[in-house]
């Protein structure tokens, strides 16, 4: 067909370079504010520094998010454009910087310097407030995720909520208000139609989205994101994607528990096995429901009707330019990232290694490497590297960006729904399906001994 191996290589290089830079910067900032500076202060001032240290530790996560979100969005825009270009047989941005790697940085500068226009007849206050209200929830929603994706690192432990997923969903429901506001305040009929469409769409798709997550919480028995992530530790069979704990017994049996572990996990014999199978199917469907609902929630193709370009010009953000548009743009990609992170934590085992520990430990070199890192100066004295957090974060990064790439692939493939078909699909297909899955899980989980 066409030779694009070169292009794939370039994109991989770009991804690795950008991700290394992003996460090094973010971690250095976090470490500096949360660990390095307090260590220094304690050394210099002793106990007098306690108050300052507490404050510093409290602001660390906020600073981490504030540093992370803009550069991450820049990277995601770039990777989206390059990946789309790869899948649509053309060249992406390849002029600014080496291989076009600085394209989005240049775009960001351009957007910030552009004139900010408020159209005549627009409600200026609401017009200004809408992008802020759109952006804020994506930051708010990202906060409790931090602890979950870093394997409950002490720096971010403070942010963990016992009702984490509930909080994330609540924050994720807010942007709709902003979209309706933006549509209404723009004094533009296309914007208005876009805003109303987004309201209708978000309300319809929130239901299957939430129900699919409730299914997972039901399996886990908790709303705590960290606990949900930690429950899934121990290889791909423990992940919520594959039965939400229904296969834990099988995993243990393979790992050395033998028939005893099987009996403990599936006490009712054949009934339990069938139920475990049902649970696996249900959770896979739940995963798919969540992805669909999330696509609709964050207005991506094939559900990007609020900003359907061929119909509504650009929907709710038609009248936005400069900074305000940049914030909309930023928030859209942050939402994508948040959704991918939630999927990772809820379904893909958070920072868990898909290879179970009983196999991993047998691979020569790996345990020694972990031990070496743990005993190194960086870990022992400076707390710069923590092997648990490091590997968890690497897996999270791989999973999250894998999902992002998947979303881009969908964007490169599918056409858009029509609004009535979209609503029919949501109400007549997804909601009944999610309810059915929910009910199956409610009953089937009683017959399987979940999580030991």
């Amino acid at each position, binding site marked *: 067909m066409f030779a694009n191996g070169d292009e794939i290589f370039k994109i991989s290089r770009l991804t690795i370079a950008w991700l290394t830079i992003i996460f090094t910067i973010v971690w250095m900032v976090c470490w500096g504010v949360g660990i390095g500076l307090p260590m220094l202060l304690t050394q210099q001032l002793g106990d007098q520094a306690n108050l300052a240290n507490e404050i510093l530790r409290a602001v660390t996560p906020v600073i981490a998010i504030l540093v992370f979100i803009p550069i991450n969005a820049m990277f995601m825009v770039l990777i989206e454009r390059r990946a789309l270009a790869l899948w*649509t047989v053309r060249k992406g941005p390849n002029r600014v910087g080496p291989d076009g790697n600085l394209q989005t940085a240049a775009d960001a500068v351009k957007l910030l310097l552009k004139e900010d226009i408020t159209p005549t007849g627009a409600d200026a206050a609401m017009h200004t407030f809408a992008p802020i209200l759109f952006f804020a929830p994506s930051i708010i929603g990202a906060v409790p995720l931090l602890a979950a994706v870093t394997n409950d690192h002490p720096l971010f432990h403070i942010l963990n909520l016992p009702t984490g997923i509930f909080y994330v969903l609540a924050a994720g429901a807010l942007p709709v208000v902003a979209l309706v506001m933006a549509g209404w305040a723009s004094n533009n009929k296309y914007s208005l139609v876009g805003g109303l469409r987004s309201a209708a769409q978000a309300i319809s798709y929130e239901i299957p989205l939430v129900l699919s997550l409730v299914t997972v919480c039901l399996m886990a028995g908790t709303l705590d994101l960290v606990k949900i992530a930690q429950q899934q530790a121990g290889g791909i069979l423990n992940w919520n994607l594959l039965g939400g704990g229904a296969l834990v017994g099988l995993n243990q049996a393979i790992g050395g528990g033998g028939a005893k572990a099987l009996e403990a996990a599936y006490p009712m014999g054949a009934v339990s096995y069938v139920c475990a199978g049902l649970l696996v199917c249900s959770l896979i469907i739940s995963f798919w429901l969540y992805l669909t609902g999330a696509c609709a929630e964050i207005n991506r193709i094939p559900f990007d009707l609020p900003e359907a370009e061929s119909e509504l010009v650009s929907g709710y953000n038609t009248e936005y330019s400069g900074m305000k548009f940049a914030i909309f743009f930023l928030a859209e990609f942050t939402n994508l990232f948040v959704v991918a992170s939630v999927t990772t934590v809820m379904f893909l085992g958070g920072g868990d290694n898909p290879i179970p520990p009983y196999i991993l430990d047998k691979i020569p070199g790996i345990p020694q490497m972990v031990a070496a890192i743990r005993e190194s100066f960086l870990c022992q004295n400076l707390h710069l590297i923590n092997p648990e957090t490091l590997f968890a974060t690497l897996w999270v990064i791989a999973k999250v960006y894998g999902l992002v790439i998947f979303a881009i692939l969908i964007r490169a493939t599918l056409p858009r*729904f*029509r609004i009535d078909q979209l609503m029919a699909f949501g109400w007549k297909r997804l909601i009944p399906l999610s309810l059915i899955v929910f009910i199956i899980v409610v009953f089937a989980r009683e017959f399987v001994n979940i999580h030991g």
Partner: protein
Amino acid sequence: MATEIQEIDLKTDEMIINMGPQHPATHGVLRLLLTLDGETVKHVEPVLGHLHRAQEWQGQNRTWFQYQALIDRVDYLSGMFTSWAMARACEQLDGVTVPERAEYMRVIVSEMNRITSHLLWLGTYLIDLGAMFGFPFYPFREREKLFDLLEEIAGQRMMFNYIRIGGVLRDPKPAWFDKLKAFLDEFPDRIDEYETIVTQNPIFLKRTKGVGILKQSVATDYGVTGPCLRSSGIAMDLRRTRPYSVYPDLKFDVITFDKEGDTWDRYMARILEMRQCVDIIRQCVEKIPTGDIMGKKQMAGMRIKAGEGFAAVESPRGVLGCYVTSSGGEKAVRFRWRNPSFCNLTILPELLKGCPLSDIMAIFGSIDIILPDVDR
């Protein structure tokens, strides 16, 4: 239901939306004044003329030779056909005999042009349906190859000015035919590739099946021609029904559908037509005789004999006609284009009545108009 609404005196206003001329999906500068009830279209009024370049006026004020170069711009996606229509009209008037090799060359290049036009339509139509970034660029890959071939013989990528009154401009080298054959061997696979992605895509089917049904009676009333008409079940293809040039010697069938044409049928008609074009070009390449390619001397002051004549060709969009009145001078007395886009666009208000807002682009795109062809 309706009476209930009246009882509680619930009143909704109609919204008038001005779609275009600056709109990403109106294929240029068409302006549609939409009256919407919610998201349902109540009334559409197309407002034309934003791309009006007085092509007919220019035809009367430029010499024949000058105007030949201009008319590719009437329909810039299928410039060969506009040239051909004018050439045929003038040849009829002038009594020029076109050499057979030139006629074959005309068929070859215009069928190539038909493929490029349909390829562009395919890409942009998918954009209209919202596949904003994915598929649309694949047809452009093949379109580029065709344009490279056309550029090689015409010297221009889109404004060919290749078909002249009396013949064609240049005789291609034998190597050109080899390149063309190589492309023809490869192209059907590419069409299969498009079809794999698009034809049975469930979302695509949902958006196009049963949408924008064009009834035969409506089509004939509005004078619709081209793939739109044929997908509605009327087998009118000038190449077969009123064969001109060397089409009688070539084997192909008119593509029609049994049922009343919806948007999906119009899509399918064009896909099948592309496959058919490949066949036609293959036959031409095999049959093309050697010989002269020009039957009339090309010069700035050339004249066409007095009289009036109408000639039409089957362009990718329908019957492209050219009505010429000459007085034997250097310029025409009256030039009149019968543009398929202009005539096919008239059905738009009829098709859009009562459809949801999202379907406007699905239907409008499926008619395959091109604005310079509408506004001239």
